[in-house]
């Protein structure tokens, strides 16, 4: 077959490739409807499942393929991945792959929101094709079905004149597919809409899409009757398929990962507060050292959020410990989102992984750790002010605007009073809280 030199018809190239367009079609459908439980019949190399696993709304993914082999799925791309453990999903996700046929009944496939049969039916012989509607629509009876198949009217545009794959038993034109689909829909009380992917080239619009797609939707009346969520009541257990691979994802619905995520978000917020605390001016109040300025991170917050945080109780330090009141922590958007604003939840869960103070109102961490050590090493740390302005009466109101440190133990404070007059204090020795 060395006849490459024979001029052939121009090969049509799709951008992106048609297979990708088909998958994207399903993806968009899943997103639009927020589908939770999805099965892919004839999952092939599992690319569709892999694409769907990233969706937040998806919770169950099932693949069925007649040629699935167990060993090939160990640690593959359907597994959660390292990142999946570090940033767990919001909702649980279970992925299961079965070896089985689309014309065999298995009760584990019942009650799905969507079953996709991408480029599947053309591989079925007439006997299987006849059984197919009864199994998928009648028995599995999902909320939606997506069936895609080649549009034979498009074939003349390809160089090869036969079927697109030697394993194809048939390739239908639009009328053939639509007739079949409408019959099936009618029989099992679904409504169907037709569309496709792979636009025909200019001048050949009449042939239609390269791939034709039927989207079947279960009619609502029927759906409420035969309740999608509780199929087991109607369907006796029937396990024909062989499990080839199964995995569950870590998620915030699992207490271990919820606790981890909440504590690490809290510790991150506290870390930023701590470095601002150490860099800003502080003063001693009894055994506490409190910040004079703001301790709110400069980044990642809206103006409104910052203002709200400013209102809340400030962090403080006692000795070598740093305390952040839970009332402040809970305002941080990520923390707030996780506990849904519940102070009790925040307290209980943080107490499991972190240290809280005596009355459980604040988180306690070390003031000096490897991240703040740098502030000490590089003298970025600012001193504690001890009541700079001693001679004050009820008429004076001080705002410390700026403090200039001279050497390491001497400080000059510049203040303005209510009248806008500027005062500069005499340089004075300041006690620096030594933190060993």
């Amino acid at each position: 077959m060395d006849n490459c030199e024979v001029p052939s018809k121009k090969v049509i190239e799709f951008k992106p490739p048609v297979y990708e367009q088909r998958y994207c079609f399903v993806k968009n459908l899943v997103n639009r409807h927020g589908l939770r439980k999805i099965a892919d019949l004839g999952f092939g190399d599992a690319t569709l499942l892999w694409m769907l696993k990233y969706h937040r709304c998806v919770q169950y993914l099932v693949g069925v393929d007649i040629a699935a082999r167990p060993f090939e799925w160990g640690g593959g791309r359907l597994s959660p991945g390292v990142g999946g453990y570090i940033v767990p999903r919001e909702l649980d996700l279970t992925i299961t792959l079965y070896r089985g046929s689309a014309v065999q009944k298995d009760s584990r496939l019942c009650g799905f929101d969507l079953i996709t049969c991408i480029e599947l039916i053309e591989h079925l012989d007439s006997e299987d094709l006849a059984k197919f509607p009864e199994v998928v629509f009648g028995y599995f009876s999902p909320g939606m079905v997506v069936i895609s198949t080649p549009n034979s009217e498009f074939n003349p545009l390809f160089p090869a004149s036969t079927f697109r794959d030697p394993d194809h038993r048939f390739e239908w034109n639009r009328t053939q597919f639509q007739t079949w689909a409408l019959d099936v829909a009618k029989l099992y009380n679904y409504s169907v809409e037709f569309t496709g992917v792979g636009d025909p080239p200019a001048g050949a619009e009449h042939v239609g899409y390269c791939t034709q797609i039927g989207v079947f939707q279960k009619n609502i009346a029927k759906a409420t009757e035969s309740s999608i969520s509780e199929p087991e009541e109607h369907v006796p257990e029937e396990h024909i398929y062989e499990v080839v691979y199964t995995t569950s994802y870590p998620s915030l619905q699992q207490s271990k990962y919820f606790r981890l995520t909440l504590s690490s978000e809290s510790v991150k917020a506290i870390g930023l507060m701590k470095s601002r605390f150490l860099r800003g001016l502080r003063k001693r109040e009894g055994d506490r050292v409190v910040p004079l300025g703001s301790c709110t991170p400069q980044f990642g917050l809206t103006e409104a959020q910052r203002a709200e945080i400013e209102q809340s109780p400030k962090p403080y330090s006692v000795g070598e410990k740093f305390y952040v009141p839970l009332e402040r922590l809970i305002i941080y958007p990520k923390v707030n989102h996780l506990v849904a604003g519940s102070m009790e939840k925040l307290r209980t869960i943080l107490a499991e992984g972190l240290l809280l103070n005596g009355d459980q109102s604040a988180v306690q961490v070390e003031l000096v750790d490897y991240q703040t050590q740098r502030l000490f090493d590089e003298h970025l740390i600012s001193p504690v002010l001890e009541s700079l302005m001693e001679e004050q009466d009820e008429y004076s109101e001080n705002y410390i605007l700026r403090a200039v440190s001279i050497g390491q133990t001497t400080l000059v404070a510049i203040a303005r009073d209510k009248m806008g007059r500027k005062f500069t204090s005499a340089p004075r020795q300041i006690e620096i809280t030594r933190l060993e």
Partner: protein
Amino acid sequence: MSGRARVRARGMARSPSAAGAGRALAPPSPASVDLGNSEASSTSGFVGTSRMSEKCEDVIPSGDAGCTFIERGGKIRWDFTDLSVCTREKLAHVRDCKRGSSGVPVKLVTNLFSLDLPQDWQLYQYHVAYVPDIESRRLRIALLYSHKELSNKAKAFDGVILFLSQKLEEKVTELSSETSRGKTVKMTITLTRELPARSPVCIQVFNIIFRKILKKLAMYQIGRNFYKPSESVEIPQHKLSLWPGFAISVSQFESRLLFTADVSYKILRNETVLEFMTGICQETGMSCFTQTCEKQLLGLIVLTRYNNKTYRIDDIDWSVKPTHTFQKQDGTEVTYVDYYKQQYDITLSNLNQPVLVSLLKSKRNDNPEVRVAHLIPELCFLTGLTRQATSDFQLMKAVAEETRLSPLGRQQRLARLADDIQRNKDARFELETWGLHFGCQMSLTGRVLPSEKILMQDRVCQPGSAAEWSKDMRNCKILSARSLNKWLVICSNRDENVTEDFLHCLRRVGGSMGFNVDYPKIIKVQENPAAFLKALQKYVDPNVQLVMCILPSNQKSYYDSIKKYLSSVCPVPSQCVLTRTLNKQGMMMSIATRIAMQMACKLGGELWAVEIPLKSLMVVGIDVCKDEFSKGMVVVGFVASINPGITRWFSRCILQRTTTDVADCLKVFMTGALNRWCKHNHAPPARIVVYRDGVGDGQLKTLIEYEVPQLLSSVTEASSNTSAKLSVIVVRKKCAPRFFTEVNRSLQNPPLGTVVDSEATRPEWYDFYLISQAAGRGTITPTHYNVIYDDNGLKPDHMQRLTFKLCHVYYNWPGLISIPAPCQYAHKLTFLVAQSVHKEPSLELANSLFYL
């Protein structure tokens, strides 16, 4: 060897040559950008009922047809390249037996598992050619695997080379397949080699098989090891996750094929690069933000959130924002924001972040095109610990508590792994189809060498425990010491009192050990590094014997500036002591004793000795260490004994610019050491034994071809008639085998002085394991010794005992250490130079252990 030093050493293990690499190509052309999602992009066109396989991912390098498997190198693991260096066959005296005889036999449990194969087992290597040629490795694999002929056979395939455990009927098999686009592809499978089980290629295939099996056991491969995230331990206060797992390998040991598994932990940080950058920005402000970011981030390994891959940050492109577009592989343009939303349902929160640039290694060696990956900081996680983190005591304590396993705990983990492998249906199936039988955990017999006597000036003491004999040494006189008459103490104004107290103690303990310490001149200075340095410049002259600095904090700048000045500019031995150390009440005497000993050594004194039966023996330690600041520089340290008692040392050090850790200057050093020896002993040494530490993976061959000849030539040149006999021993502190002893139905670390020279050793080497250090908690890692050159012809027993003796004479620790003292001295020297001095220390100091 302080804990701090060890911690520091570990923190440096960052990749050395990161900085320059990415720069050259910035800004990267968007056309060649790969977003690190090759999973998504390389399946082009092949859909249908056949599927792709995850098999032999990255393990077998794919390359040109015709090249043999092993020659294509690059990714071949060290133990295979090093194992092909057969040094034993050249050493006549150990060709038949390399086992020692002295000591008490001890039964040891190991972390090795037997792996049995049928007698006549063979591996068949095939070459697979595709017509027309197909680029995609995935497609190549999928097409081949979809064939019925191969579907039920045990196989490993990288796209070019196919391994089968059963021979195909024909020498050349022709198959054909069609892609979904209707293209007919002809595959020709040609038998190229039949390999016996001992062949290195087979060993590599076995490793691939076990990788697959561990993946099947729900473990994740990160680097070379496998981890179990479902059993992770969290340390939330430090934003860390610890994943337990295993380092595994299959290799040919002394008499059989063995599977090795060692417990390992992966430290993962719950911190994205974006969060890290935000932290930097808040601390440093915008002025030096970009420089600080680059300084801290370049060279780090990050893990992407979405696709389980690791990348090295080679550059940061500040000009590219997530809202910019790039070209996908199919040619369409998309913004980063949209791409991550569409592909992974991830919404980027910060649209001003720059992108990280990572150079991708070309899978095919002949491909000159450099590809880069653009990564979004928000989606990248930092891995490993920074130097700051490793020096955080609290953090390291928390990590150690979780990761330090007792021998029993370790054994339980191993037993569970073995059990999992044997029970898992798929794992068993895979092993069976290959004809492998996973056997039981191996036990062997080691020997505990007789304990050593410590020779002091006025008596010989037999320590109660060889782990530490400081108690036994109380009131003993050290071998020799020069008296300290003219010396300086520099301290801050505030530390005057504590210094006085300490000096009092020091003089008292000095007196009792036979080290006369006169009262020093005390200089009080301000509390900052510059003031200390100024005092040194003003007061230190060549007549000063020693300078002691009482440092107010452990800030690196104090130590570095003092050591730099006194090691190279004005060579005088120096002793730094932290105020904090002196404030430890109740421990003053023991602290003063240790410091007095160090000072005595720095003046050229000798503390203790062990009996060395060989007369006229010189021992040498060599270590190599990467310089902390100048990337691409390595520090080579060379320490040689210059008296038959092995109590006095000659130490040299050099900085060399090189890409490998191979020492370049050994001839000069060796000649210098021999001259020094001759001066002291009036004749060259009869024997020289060199211990070489700091050898990287796969460097054994270079060492033999490059370093041994340097040493040999200087030895032959040094003497006119009979030249000294030379032995060279490679010392490795990291090795896979672990040994435990069974005591009262529990497991413990083996006794000090345990030698293993059978079963767990390698047939092609003259090697042994020695346990010469004690561990209070955790499991001991034995030290591996590989004698790569040996003219001396010492009996293996003598070689082992000499090595053990040398582990006793490290003067910074009154007890046994894990490696021979000359190696530890060389390490200490290179570490000081690499961390603080960054310059060759003055030759005037070479006769004393000034770096202790």
